[in-house]
């Protein structure tokens, strides 16, 4: 029974995000690889980066990424390589090109509009004068029985 238990546990055990075996010996290179793998999506997972994912494909991608780094790729080149192989889908930070510009610029644009509206609201509210408006003065004169000047 105990042996069966052990087998069951191991059969089901998932691969593990960033296995020690995959890691590079060069700590600087490894750190760069870790940072990059947080920018890359595991293509078969639901919204996980290859850095966190347990999927076999994610592990493969981590290894490929490290191979590129060892081969001397810069960060950009390594990301480009991944995109050329797996498509734009793997980038967790969409590039600001083409239609994606909307994604990146929509919020700053909305902020400017909102600040504009907010400012004009504040000004409009502020516009209430200290004294009486002309119309109110005329009204007052009328009540007091004098003719408007």
């Amino acid at each position, binding site marked *: 029974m*105990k042996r069966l*238990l*052990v087998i*069951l*546990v*191991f059969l*089901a*055990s*998932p*691969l*593990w*995000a*960033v*296995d*020690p*075996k995959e*890691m590079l010996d060069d700590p600087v290179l490894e750190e760069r690889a870790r940072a990059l793998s*947080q*920018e890359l*999506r595991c293509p078969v997972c*639901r*919204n*996980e*980066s290859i850095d*966190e994912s347990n999927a076999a494909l994610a592990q493969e991608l981590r290894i490929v990424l490290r191979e590129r780094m060892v081969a001397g790729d810069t960060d950009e080149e390594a990301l480009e390589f991944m995109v050329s192989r797996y*498509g*734009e*889908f*793997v*980038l*967790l*930070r*969409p590039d600001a090109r*083409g*239609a*994606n510009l909307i*994604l*990146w610029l*929509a*919020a700053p644009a*909305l*902020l400017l509009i*909102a*600040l504009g509206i*907010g400012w004009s*609201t*504040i*000004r409009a*509210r*502020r*516009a*209430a004068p200290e004294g009486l408006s002309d119309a109110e003065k005329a009204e007052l004169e009328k009540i007091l029985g004098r003719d408007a000047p």
Partner: protein
Amino acid sequence: MPCRVALRSEGAPNCTAEEGCLLCCLAAEWVIITLMLIELGHFALILAFGIAIVQMIVPMVGAHRGNAGWMAMAEPAATAQFLLTAFAFAVLTWGFVTSDFSLQLVYLNSHTDKPMIYKITGVWGNHEGSMLLWMVILTLFGACAAWFGDGLPARLRARVLAVQASIAVAFFAFVLFTSNPFLRLEVPPLNGRDLNPLLQDPGLAFHPPFLYLGYVGLSMSFSFAIAALIEGRVDAAWGRWVRPWTLAAWMFLTIGIALGSWWAYYELGWGGFWFWDPVENASFMPWLISAALLHSAIVVEKREALKSWTILLAILAFGFSLLGAFIVRSGVLTSVHAFANDPARGMLILIILAVFLGGALTLFAFRAHAMESKGVFSTVSRESGLILNNILLSVSCFVVFIGTIWPLVSELLFDRTVSVGPPFFDAAFTPFMVALAIALPLGSILAWKRGSLARAAKSVVGWLVVAIAMAGLAYAIQSGNSALGPIGVALGVWVVGGALADLWMRSGRDSIPQRLRRITRLPRADWGKATAHIGMGVTIFGIAAMMAWEQEDIRIAQIGDSWDVGQFEFRLDSVNQFEGPNYLTTMADISVWQGARQIGDLHPEKRFYPVANMPTTEAAIINGVLRDIYVVVGDPQEGGGWAVRVYLKPFANWIWGGAMLMALGGCFSLSDRRLRIGAASAKKTPKAVPAE
């Protein structure tokens, strides 16, 4: 007295009487009742649906015609709706507790070996049950408005309850026609398929009810907004009535989100606390908007300004709740934790969303101009500060919104499949929170109507100096050159200090003991404000500190190996297999040493749930105020030894501690005298405030 059914052999085997004795009869009746219980629950739900339809129409017409009797029927109807729905929920819970596998839902989501607590929480650990919980909460809020709404004008109350009922009608229809929890199986199986093991956890068990309380609580704000639009009138009293509902909803959302985040932290095995997952975003968007709403409602209440904007926020807040329901239930946006997604259900929620949001916005477009604002204020004033707060919160909500739906939009309109992940949100969202934190201490102490920036600055400038000094200190101590940590320290100190300065300022100008005494007697709303703002500062600091100063160590360790991480030494003592109630586990024994002193014994696990055929990771954590020690055990290695991960996570608990402070602040505010039930009528006969 003959029994209706002779169940002597089954129901009451020990009964020997020739004719059915009373006991036998009772036993037999009981058996019949329990057999029928499920059907009774089902029937109660249908009845509640019918009552909701009546409650949607009659009080609304009554309010229109001025018919008091028609308006008055809303109250008993709301009560009945709630009682019937609660009964249906109790019946479903009974089904789970007794493992009645003739219910399809119980069969699919439960198991006799499961601990009792998870049998109960399993009721809402699935789509149908969670929708029923949603209904219980929705009708509960409606009933609360009926029970405690004595201060409301009859007409407004009738309209609010009618709008609330219309929401209930839509969701009753959704439950009964697409997600009925009371479907029976013709041949009951011997045992069930078990609940998703990830959900068998205390943190997650109570995360959904809180979130639903929040989501659904916003339906009250929505109902008030629609009723006000129909009436064409919003005044200070309206602001006071709508605020407690919003405050309560926001509080529950805060707790729900914090629980979910805390769960992700210790359960998912790498100590992340927020993933910008569509489902998380679905709860975060209503949180941001309701935070904006509860601030703008203050302006309506105190200054009768920003009325139409507040109405719009109330509509949007519930709109985002519905959008969240759509995202979670439809699975349109793939996500790590959607448990039941089905396009047909998604479609129906989309229709509900379109009808309510579309209808509300149309009504808004026609009626908003009727909401004339009265209050005037100068450029430098609390009002302006709150407008800035609203702008930043709303736009940051928009960032989350566009990032969440962009993959869908991009694929549909531009034929590009893209992903929008944490790197985008971190870059696009964070600046808004930084701006909010910078503005908060100043904006929140400006005087209403006309403030003086110089005076406000004078009372917080000390804290600005402290904040910068602390940031400098953090920069000097930390290893590495990250700016994130020091910035987090500065913002945290600034926000917390600002809140303290605000309290201090309110205590007057007397001697220090007198000021201290007066501080304790400030209105609870003031304490609520300060506590919530302090919580915000604490959370900001916690997030920045944990992200900036986290240490990670991944290695292969042999049994008996020891290694250092930070100032701690870890030793892998053993790895053993055990059997849990409904799982198998591989448990490591790792001792943690600081110098010669052992500070803990950690037991990280890898579990396997055979019924659900699913593995999980159970991290072992030593919680601390200053840092968490977080250990995960991985696979056995080919050359012997085990993969082990150790994290040191500084100030991790401050993230959720801050969130709890925010919720606590909400609690204080909610208990303020002016918001308490019957505040409007109490006003007529003012009572002396008892001295404490």
